[in-house]
């Protein structure tokens, strides 16, 4: 399959079941909600070493937030319910509770996990709870007033690890293509691209020659190893960049991938895009398969 001169590999991305939650962070001004959201979703690129994968889903207008202030919706994904609960508590406790004027609310229904339930103890006995509209909120006294935090947020089964590779002639051309893809994918609700700027340059394979390393460089897609390993790259490919997608639902991942793939293909071969591929494990490990050619059909 060739779209606008870009070869689409007959392959698929293999993704896994995860647990996810959405949290809404609000603040007096949107910049403070963004500061808190950026911090809370920082160092959350891969579950391999970060505990969770997280990102900003979108900014919210005052009309969309529970307290009528500007806000940000963030999504967090982890491999288990327990790990997700741990990450939510740590990240909200260290990055949202600490940020001036912020408040924190559940962003989705689902199995309840603690949001402010344990953070309330920071109030050292001065905290108050309020039941409003059937939901419990904690008012934790802090130095700028009160930190208002909903007791729990909802956790749902989700999908993590959707991906595709963009193979281009040069770094600049590859970067322009994935940036265009990310811009399109960020318009899809329910999906995040957890890596820096949404983009990964260090795609990995499972395992390593070194004991104890669970992942190592994806040598088959490294252009500098074309002559040193069983390479997947043709001579004209100078750079490969990957986009990883986590979604609340299977269709969110599918939609985000479709948007990204189309954006890359729209640039086409004339802009140095040669091929699109995807990462999988032979289809034996992940429950979700996203076939590139089907997505672009």
């Amino acid at each position: 399959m060739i779209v606008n001169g870009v070869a689409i590999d007959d392959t698929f991305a293999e993704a896994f079941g995860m647990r996810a939650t959405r949290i809404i962070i609000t603040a007096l001004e949107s910049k403070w909600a963004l500061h808190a959201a950026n911090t809370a979703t920082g160092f959350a690129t891969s579950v391999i070493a970060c505990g969770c994968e997280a990102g900003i889903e979108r900014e919210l207008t005052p009309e969309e937030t529970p307290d009528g202030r500007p806000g940000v919706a963030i999504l967090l994904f982890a491999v288990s319910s327990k790990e997700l609960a741990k990450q939510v508590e740590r990240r909200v406790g260290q990055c949202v509770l600490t940020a001036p004027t912020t408040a924190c609310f559940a962003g989705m229904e689902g199995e309840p996990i603690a949001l402010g339930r344990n953070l309330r103890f920071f109030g050292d006995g001065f905290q108050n709870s309020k039941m409003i509209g059937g939901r419990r909120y904690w008012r934790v006294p802090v130095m700028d007033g009160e930190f208002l935090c909903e007791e729990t947020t909802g956790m749902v089964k989700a999908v993590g690890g959707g991906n595709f590779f963009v193979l281009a002639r040069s770094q600049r051309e590859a970067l322009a293509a994935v940036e265009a893809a990310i811009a399109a994918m960020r318009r899809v609700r329910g999906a995040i691209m957890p890596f820096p700027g949404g983009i990964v340059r260090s795609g990995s394979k499972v395992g390593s020659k070194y004991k104890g390393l669970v992942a190592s460089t994806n040598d088959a897609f490294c252009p500098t190893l074309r002559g040193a390993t069983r390479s997947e790259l043709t001579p004209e490919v100078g750079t490969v960049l990957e986009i990883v997608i986590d979604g609340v639902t299977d269709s969110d991942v599918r939609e985000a991938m479709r948007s990204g793939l189309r954006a890359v293909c729209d640039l086409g071969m004339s802009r140095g895009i040669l091929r699109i591929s995807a990462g999988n494990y032979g289809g034996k490990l992940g429950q979700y398969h996203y076939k590139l050619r089907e997505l672009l059909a």
Partner: protein
Amino acid sequence: MTALTLRLRESPPVSIDASTLSPPRLAGLTRARIEALELELGNRSVRVGELFDVSGDDWDNVVVENATERLMHLGAGMETGTLEVHGDAGAYLGSGMRAGRISVSGNAGIFAGCEMESGTIEIGGNVGDWLGAALPGNKQGMRGGFIHVRGHAGDRVADRMRRGVVLIERNAGAYLGSCMLAGTVIVKGGIGPQPGFGLKRGTLLLLGESRLPETFNDCGRHELLFLTLLERELRARGGLEALLPLPRCVRRYCGDLATGGKGEILLDAAR
């Protein structure tokens, strides 16, 4: 289907326990069975049919017409449906209520909504003492739900209240929120002496004239975000325009310092 309507022919000479006349207790009964139900009237029993004209067939929606303060325990322990009282209700209206909605067009007696767990009570007129309170000897009053009084309320509103919201559009009597454990009470009008006496936790939001006891300390002017959430909830319920908007900025007093000081009285800072 039309609402099951019980029209009181004339006010009974003494108070009767009317707790039977609520949706779940009448569910599935034929008109004849309802008329045959016995109510306690002083030291004797009287059949529903002797006091009320019964019509309609929607057991989930019960209407009591020509009601007077002699009808006690209306909607007590109610678990579902709606109870509409045209006229006045006696003591213990909706006491121990668990769900559903009660509305009274006139006044209600003492202990309305006492120890209720959930649901909504709306009183168009005034209400007696001990609204949403605990029964004598019990440790906890209202444990959830929503009470809205359009008129005045008596003394000891929300005494030992544990959770829920009480709204009073006009004045409230003495000892408002006495020994309250948690929950929210909003009074638009004036209040009697000693509000928050023994308050342990919870919020009294007083929008009218009020004089606070010495055992409350000023914590300053603040914009409290939970009031925004509360206002949104009240707007969503509808029919509460007289109480809205809630103040953006309040003066916070913590107390009762004689009992831990973890409760709060909030006054409109703009006053």
